[in-house]
């Protein structure tokens, strides 16, 4: 079972905490909302999910899907 990074733009308030604490510079801000700039760098550490005050970014379990579909 793999994990993929997902963003709920509707809940994002643009505080920037996830961008600041992402160790791999996966994330960026665009129009005051979080964007996944480069998912290929993501190491699924979950630092963003741990500190997002609005539950707008998290690692989702991917069940029965190929890696390609998960991207």
């Amino acid at each position, binding site marked *: 079972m793999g994990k993929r990074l*997902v963003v709920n733009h509707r809940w994002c308030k*643009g*505080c*920037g905490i996830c961008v600041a604490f992402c160790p791999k510079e996966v994330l960026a801000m665009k129009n005051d909302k979080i964007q996944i700039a480069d998912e290929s760098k993501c190491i699924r550490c979950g630092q963003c999910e741990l500190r*997002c*005050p*609005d*539950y707008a970014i998290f690692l989702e379990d991917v069940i029965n899907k190929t890696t390609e579909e998960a991207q």
Partner: protein
Amino acid sequence: MSTEKPSALISKYLRTQHLPHIWCPGCGHGILMRDVAKAIDNLKIDNDNVCLVSGIGCSSRIAGYMDFNTIHTTHGRAIAFATGIKLAKPEMTVIVVAGDGDISAIGGNHLIHAARRNIDLTVVVFNNDIYGMTGGQYSPTTPKGELGTTAPYGNIDRPFDISALAKGAGATYVARGTAYHAVQTIKMIQDGISHKGFALIDCISACPTYYGRKNKKGGAVEMMKWQQANGVSVEKAAGMTAEELAGKLVIGKLHQEMGVPEFTEEYQRIIDRFTVGG
């Protein structure tokens, strides 16, 4: 990848129809609410066996968001309501979430006496050093010299150390976490819930809107980085001098005392003495 669905953890423990919550962008309370959910999840306690009690203030809005038995009570009185709930249902996990002003000013007396009684409650303080909801007035934990809307020339009071206050009053589990130190704080909340007796976890939150802006601490990111840079573990702090520890946040389990009689059990013994056949 974009989604409109919340994570499994959030779906299980939060009333998602009320999200996004009202807390400001970057407010530490959202992080701490997830910590409470994760702690319950790690302990595998059924939602229906948890009662979450809150008072008044930004943090106390949590009673509306979390999907347990919840009660949003009057200012400072969450512990009083929680005491009644725990006595009626001692088998239930009763958690109080309160702000620094709610718990140590308005409800200060309830705090010290619940600690003295060693009643099996877990109090999670969302401590942001200010009254956020009402507009940034200084609270009992605002550091000396800092600004609030009611302290335009700097706060002249010495702040309460809520952890030390709880320990002094007889709490048998005391820990300090922060919004930044989420992994450790989740563990502390778990240990506080598992501890039989009065547990208090003083969680340093961040109020970028009032405290941060008034005191030029930067935004949410800068306030979190401050916690990261100034949090010192209990183990490391043991080898540091008072001067070295000035302005630092000592993080971790600060106190635990086992074997102290617990209030609801003591109360039950009295009931048993007067119960026919008991």
